[in-house]
């Protein structure tokens, strides 16, 4: 127990909330921006400090536990208020169930030995690092973004102060959630993130935004109910803390918590809220998708994974994850809306994390944590890039991103870095995917789903990267003007992505392997799993660096040395229009000029969204029901 640690812990949770409150009441834009920046700096500094500090447990006084309970009731009441506000009886019902359960549990007594209310261990340190760093960067980015957004946002939009309040507060809540061990605090932060996401998604207050916000709170409060039920069931067995549930291996309680996790992580069939969340301003999408909201689910499950080794529940979680991965990868193929593709990809990757967590081996666990980290950074970067691109070209459609490389070279290169990190072998995402497949070797169904999913992901990433790098020849490139906050955040994130990506193998070897070993201490691991785990940690680093370096050096040398006089118009069957500025113009009927255009492959007749979604949801629902049946709840 260290005072500084406690303070840091308090700061990383309460700090953002206090800043948020200050921001809410600030009239001046400049001051507000400074406050946001301050919040970001403070949070990230504290986050890094916590991540770097040794593991610690915080045993609070009993009043802290009561405060948690009180706050949870407040949050539940807020949900009820929202339910009244949007006239949703379902949300009202969920809120009421929660309220009743929370109040009842107030009068029950848990285990006598009260554990720590807040825990700083490997997993929570990783999570705090992600939330604080990526979240803070998104905060900074949103300064520039909102300045522009204010101009063309609909008149109905809430004030930027409100926006910032919830955005900054969100990070505090998220930090609280990943550090909390006490189920009351957990529930309280869980609800807080739900409420924040509701407000942020509905920020523009257009009809569509309102609808999607309502859907988000509906689905998430369902998740809240699941969590409360889980906590209540745990309480019946005497545990008031998450660690207690794990200690007792209380599988029934945990199954509900896992359900809450699946809802928060927008796994099939609960994915629709996350897709709807795309209407929000981009920082919100970025925050929800990369650093915060969706990670709650995987966090809850990951924390429990070593405690439930070998249970059917974990097996089903792995299958749900793998199925979500395969289904969303297929769905993403038919999308031309860039943000939606990213959204599907997020769901898919979270599914993969669930799969890894459910596989029950240190290899899977390490893959899951690695995936979590790399996904947060890369996806955050990609969303921010998307926002920048969207504000510039006014479209989210992949097909409209044709000559981005010329119009906004810097952002495009950064976007490419982000995409490359999702696709190129030694970078983090692919390394984790590789680990995931190796880890999944013991369960064939999961394996097949992951294999299919990862093959499908290639299709939309390749399509998108291809479209973005499409340029006609131009001797010069435009100099890009974007606000400094956006630019610097993109640059920082891209640097993080590159460094982390290049060092992925090292990071894995030196960090994630240890975490996994610590997490699985004392559990039974099969010989073959152990062998794989050891082998994975020993992959050589230098061939990758040597050949990628070689390609880059040779390619870049060639890039700058080829003579512009060697540029030829594309092959258009000989009917190019000479002297046209658009090299892809051809002469056709009546000798008039037409633009040759080749749109990307969407396979809509196969992966049509509504139909595929319907079937996938159905199957996913069946899997979830069978999960409950398998552990004997149903």
């Amino acid at each position: 127990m260290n005072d500084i640690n406690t303070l840091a812990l308090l700061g990383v949770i309460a700090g953002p909330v206090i800043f948020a409150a200050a921001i809410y009441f600030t009239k001046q834009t400049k001051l507000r921006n400074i406050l946001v920046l301050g919040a970001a700096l403070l949070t990230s500094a504290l986050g890094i400090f916590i991540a770097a500090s040794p593991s610690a447990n915080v045993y609070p006084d009993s009043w802290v536990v009561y405060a948690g309970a009180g706050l949870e009731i407040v949050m539940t009441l807020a949900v009820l208020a929202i339910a009244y506000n949007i006239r949703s009886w379902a949300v009202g019902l969920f809120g009421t169930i929660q309220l009743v359960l929370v109040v009842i549990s107030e009068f029950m007594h848990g285990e006598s030995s009260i554990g720590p209310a807040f825990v700083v261990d490997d997993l929570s340190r990783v999570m705090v690092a992600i939330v604080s760093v990526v979240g803070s960067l998104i905060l900074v980015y949103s300064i520039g973004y909102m300045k522009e957004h204010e101009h063309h946002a609909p008149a109905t939009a809430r004030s930027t102060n409100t926006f910032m309040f919830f955005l900054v507060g969100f990070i505090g809540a998220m930090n609280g959630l990943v550090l909390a061990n006490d189920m009351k605090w957990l529930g309280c932060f869980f609800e807080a993130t739900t409420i924040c996401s509701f407000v942020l998604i509905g920020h523009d207050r257009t009809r569509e935004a309102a609808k999607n916000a309502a859907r988000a709170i509906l689905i998430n409060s369902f998740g809240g109910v699941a969590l409360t039920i889980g906590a209540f069931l745990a309480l019946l067995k005497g545990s008031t803390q998450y660690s207690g549930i794990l200690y007792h291996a209380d599988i029934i309680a945990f199954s509900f918590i896992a359900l809450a996790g699946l809802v928060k992580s927008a796994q099939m069939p609960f994915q629709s809220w996350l897709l709807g969340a795309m209407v929000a301003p981009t920082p919100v999408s970025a925050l929800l998708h990369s650093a915060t909201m969706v990670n709650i689910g995987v966090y809850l499950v990951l924390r429990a994974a070593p405690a439930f080794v070998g249970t059917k529940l974990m097996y089903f979680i792995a299958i749900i994850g793998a199925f979500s991965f395969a289904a969303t990868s297929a769905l993403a193929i038919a999308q031309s809306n860039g943000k939606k593709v990213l959204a599907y990809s997020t769901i898919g990757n979270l599914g993969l994390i669930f799969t890894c967590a459910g596989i029950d081996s240190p290899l899977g666990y390490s893959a899951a944590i690695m995936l979590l980290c790399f996904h947060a950074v890369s996806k955050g970067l990609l969303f921010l890039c998307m926002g920048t691109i969207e504000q510039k070209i006014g479209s989210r459609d992949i097909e409209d991103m044709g000559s981005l490389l010329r119009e906004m070279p810097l952002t495009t290169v950064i976007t490419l870095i982000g995409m490359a990190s999702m696709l190129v072998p030694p970078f983090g995402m692919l390394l984790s995917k590789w680990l995931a497949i190796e880890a999944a070797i013991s369960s064939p169904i999961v394996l097949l789903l992951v294999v299919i999913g990862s093959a499908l992901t290639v299709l939309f990433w390749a399509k998108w990267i291809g479209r973005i790098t499409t340029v006609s020849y131009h001797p010069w490139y435009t100099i890009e003007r974007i606000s400094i906050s956006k630019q610097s955040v993109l640059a920082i994130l891209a640097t993080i992505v590159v460094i982390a990506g290049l060092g992925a193998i090292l990071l894995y070897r030196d960090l994630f392997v240890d975490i996994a070993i610590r997490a699985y201490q004392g559990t039974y691991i099969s010989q073959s799993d152990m062998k794989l785990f050891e082998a994975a940690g020993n992959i050589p680093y230098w061939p990758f660096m040597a050949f990628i370096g070689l390609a880059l050096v040779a390619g870049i040398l060639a890039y700058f040395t080829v003579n512009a006089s060697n540029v030829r118009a594309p092959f258009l069957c000989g009917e190019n229009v000479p002297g046209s500025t658009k090299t892809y113009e051809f002469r056709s009927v009546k000798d008039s000029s037409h633009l040759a255009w080749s749109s990307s492959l969407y396979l809509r007749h196969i992966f049509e969204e509504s139909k595929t979604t319907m079937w996938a949801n159905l199957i996913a629902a069946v899997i979830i029901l069978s999960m409950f049946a398998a552990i004997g709840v149903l």
Partner: protein
Amino acid sequence: MSETIIKLLIAIVAAPLVGAIIAGLDRKVTARMQGRVGPPILQPIYDVLKLLIKQPIFLNRVQILYAFMHLAFMMLTLVLLILGQDLLLTLFVHAFATISLILGGMCVRSPYSRIGSQRKTLMLLAYEPILVIMVVGIYLSQGSFMASDVVAAGAKPLLLSLPLVFIAYMMAMAIELQKSPFDVASSHHAHQEIVKGVTLEYAGPFLAIIEIAHFYEVFLLFAVVYFFWAPYNLANAAVGMALAAGAFLFHIVLDNTFARLPAMWIVRFMWVIVFLMATTNIIWLYRLGTI
């Protein structure tokens, strides 16, 4: 260490030459099967040498970058294999080599090139799962993902435990070699409906780079066939060679007795028939093993 480096250097130099000679033999035998005399066996090497001295015309600079990436990742695949590294990772590296080529075809505003790339993506989609399944099969029969363990002395020849996977691999290989029923994206022969597909906009030295990468790929593909009967000993090596030769003939006959089939047909075929075939083999192994 220095021994490894020498081994690698030899491989890096020899692999494309072997690949080129296989490609040359391929052209020669194909010609003979069509009742022609055909080109000299070293023709692919002449082609590449010629391309290297042609004018380097290009469309945009990005495509050049992708060409180099394609080659580098193909070489990396070879290196990882020689180092006896993890097969799955090697496979991913190889897939990315193909993706670079796809991106190279996509990043130009040339309709046929893009269509070729899209078809190539579909082909990647068609054969990639099969290859992953193959690697899984190798793991299940050898208990390791390491290439070095597959060829290690005393290991059991893979073909005995993976006969159906071998057939599936033959199909995947035919796609990568651009052989007839599967040559939808590009081909070494003319009269293609989409002209040359992915390599359409590459010319001169840049095309040569892609050709060299293709030689590496040819070598790799046949090396994998060899792996199916690879454990170190002379008799086994002879069988492995014979297997590779058989695969070579099979592909030429396939090329010469089939019409090109539509891309979606191929995806369906690979995902339904071949995939099922491979998974049947895998499930059989699971039954033998863990479950």
